[in-house]
């Protein structure tokens, strides 16, 4: 789109600069470095099959990290991810067992349950002003309690519907897994919302200064509540996909996703204090985390090493980027 602007060269450069803040560039740099390191170990690291496989694995985390990013942009956090993921997987699989109607409703019902929990989180944060960390932690415990009660503490026997399996493992476009398409669609929608809508602007504004956003007449409480609902819905959606991927839901299936989701968002340059960050960065963070996991497991570094490396990487990155605005370090 060419325009007769006064500085035709400067404008795209500026736009590029806004998208490519240093942390995003570094995240992409790390991805390239990891791939090169991996290819020294085994040339198959650069093969299209391996890369597509990684994208497929990344897509589940990507969907969760999308919701997490929106919440973090507000300057909040959503710690209810683990059991909302499980909730999405279990509820959709449960409904799928109810004949053809159940088959059809499985996916929306699973997501709907997540939105419901997210909504409760949002009401707690926006209207009752309970710190998001606390209410989402408590909500996680409640959902866990509900699911334990429902499943009797064992992995549920219901299996995922055909649609769920197709969404997670099928191919509409040959060789491109559907889950990657799902992530791409959600990502595109998120970019649209963040850059083109009043809702997206309000999210950034609240993250920068909720006080100023409120005094500007933005419906801050409604935006916060809705964002938590979206995050809950996306976590549950990831649960639906994971259940489709494994053909059924499992206890604690969401546990390995909380920390990587936060890490991906933070590594992608989104400020943990809110208000700053791009979706491109989150994409980079998700891929980076996935590659890191993959390489660590290829190099046969155990879960222990992975946990330690996560922790160290998150703290190191935050020390690099997170300090400038942390005047009040609460």
């Amino acid at each position, binding site marked *: 789109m060419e325009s007769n602007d006064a500085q035709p060269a400067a404008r795209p450069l500026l736009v590029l600069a806004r998208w490519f803040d240093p942390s995003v560039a570094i995240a992409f740099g790390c991805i390239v470095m990891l791939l090169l390191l991996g290819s020294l170990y085994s040339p198959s690291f650069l093969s299209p099959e391996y890369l597509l496989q990684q994208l497929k694995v990344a897509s589940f985390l990507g969907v969760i990290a999308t919701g997490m990013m929106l919440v973090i942009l507000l300057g909040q956090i959503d710690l209810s991810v683990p059991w909302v993921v499980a909730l999405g997987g279990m509820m959709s699989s449960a409904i799928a067992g109810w004949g053809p109607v159940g088959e059809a409703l499985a996916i929306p019902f699973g997501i709907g349950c997540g939105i419901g929990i997210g909504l409760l989180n949002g009401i707690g944060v926006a209207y009752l002003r309970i710190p998001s960390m606390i209410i989402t932690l408590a909500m996680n415990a409640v959902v866990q309690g509900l699911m334990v009660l429902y499943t009797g503490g064992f992995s549920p026997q219901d299996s995922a519907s055909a649609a769920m399996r197709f969404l997670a493992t099928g191919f509409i476009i040959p060789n491109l897994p559907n889950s990657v398409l799902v992530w791409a669609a959600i990502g595109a929608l998120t970019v649209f919302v963040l850059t083109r809508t009043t809702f997206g*602007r309000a999210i950034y*504004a609240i993250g920068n*200064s909720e006080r100023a956003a*409120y005094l500007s*007449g*933005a419906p801050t409480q409604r935006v916060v509540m809705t964002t938590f609902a979206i995050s809950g819905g996306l976590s549950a959606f990831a649960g639906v996909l994971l259940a489709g991927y494994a053909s059924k839901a499992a206890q604690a299936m969401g546990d390995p996703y909380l920390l990587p989701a936060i890490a991906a968002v933070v590594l992608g340059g989104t400020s943990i204090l809110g*208000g700053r960050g791009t979706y491109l960065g989150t994409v980079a963070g998700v891929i980076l985390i996935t590659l890191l996991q993959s390489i660590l497991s290829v190099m046969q570094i155990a879960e222990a090493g992975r946990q330690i490396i996560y922790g160290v990487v998150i703290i190191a990155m935050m020390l690099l980027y997170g300090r400038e605005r942390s005047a009040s370090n609460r």
Partner: protein
Amino acid sequence: MEALSTPLFRMEGISKRYGGVHALRDASLAVEAGRIHAILGENGAGKSTLIKIIAGVTAADSGRMLLNESEVTFASPAQASRAGIACVFQELSLIPDLTVADNIFISDPPRRFGLIDRGKQRQMAEAVLARAGAGDIHPMAQVRDLPLSRRQLVEIAKALARDPRMLILDEATSALTQSDVTKVFDVLKRLRKEGLALLYISHRMQEIAELADICTVFRNGRNVATYEAGTKSDNEVVELMIGREYRHVFPPKPLPVPADRVPVLTVNDLSWSDRLRNISFSVQAGEVVGLGGLDGQGQRELLLALFGVLRGVAGELRIDGNKVAVKGPNDAKAPKIGMALIPEDRKTEGLMLPMSVRDNLSFAALQRISTAGMIDFAGERRLIAEMISLLAIRSSSNDQPVSALSGGNQQKVVIAKWLMVTPRIILLNDPTRGIDVGTKQELYKLLRRLAESGVAVVFYSTDYDELINCCNRVLVLFDGSVISELAGEGITDRALVASALSIGTNSAAKTREAR
């Protein structure tokens, strides 16, 4: 006591800048032991900054301080306290969840085996509370449960507990009842006899007349006069406080607005908490109504109340004669009401600093330039361009963060952002604070243009010159009520200062005792 004693504390050539604004320029002060030294000055004369520097809360940019003729620097309040300087701050430094005794001995409690000796601390607290004239406060009460006036006495006791050589009281009596004031004065007089140096900042002329031995007047960050108490009349003091170095060029004074139309904004009997008391006034289209008075007499709360930010506001609000309920900024900016507020602190309340100029400008008016929640980028660009040229906002690009702009341009962004919603009523909360002279003049012209186009303006300013030159009428607030209304040629320096200080003017015979 010797007649020509050397001062206990001296400061020389003290300057302090905040951004582009000089809060203090080359100020000096000498405080002697055994005397009560009063500091007077208008809003923004530099008194608060002076206190903060002496107490170690902020550091001066240049100049030196001497205590007993040896140079001292204070990096923190704790250091000043150790040197024997205790300060009773205007904004309280008490910790709400601790007990009175804990608060009084917060930094240096009595200890036994390294642990705080609560029994002894309690006895000592009782003694020092009695010394501060607050023997009726229980040392085990939690500060949170005490009313404001009691807390202020605890604050004084806390300062005394450090056994200071110099005690600073910054508006320390503002929340006290008359009987408490009498008690505190007795205490201060006794401390003077004990040889303490006392630095007393107050806006209340009667108190200064009763208490002070020596007075220093500050104006525009400088000490302009020091005189023995009782050697100048109230009028002379007011004259010293308002004399100005330069005057801004203001647009011509507004013509009176005919009062026969239905006012755009009518306020009846507005009250809130104990900060606003039965305020009634109205504003016509095209009229600029100023809010005057000393800082912190309820002007800010009044603007917030009108904008729907405060909860539990009693009274009635009418727009075009129709009763309305404003439940928040979102309501207030709706076209039916059409209100805009330029808030007090542009950095935290007016702007999202790290966000771009563009995002900040269009944020309040997003509803106007979007359909179904989707922003019309072309419309946004058009409107922004319009505003940037209307207000002559200088920025290298609309994509740069608003934090990169100068203070004056930032304030223009705040105003432009609200003009984009085409308000009919604009509330301004001290919009020229910390802004360069050139931008100020542009803002005055803008204000006049807006009024001429039929906007009703409510304008709070701490600069009396602005009230005099920009307003059709000025309401002077004192302690949450309107104590006098000045109009047209009646808005003068003298009238503003006199009624703000609540000393003998026409209708302003109200004093604290009346309550």
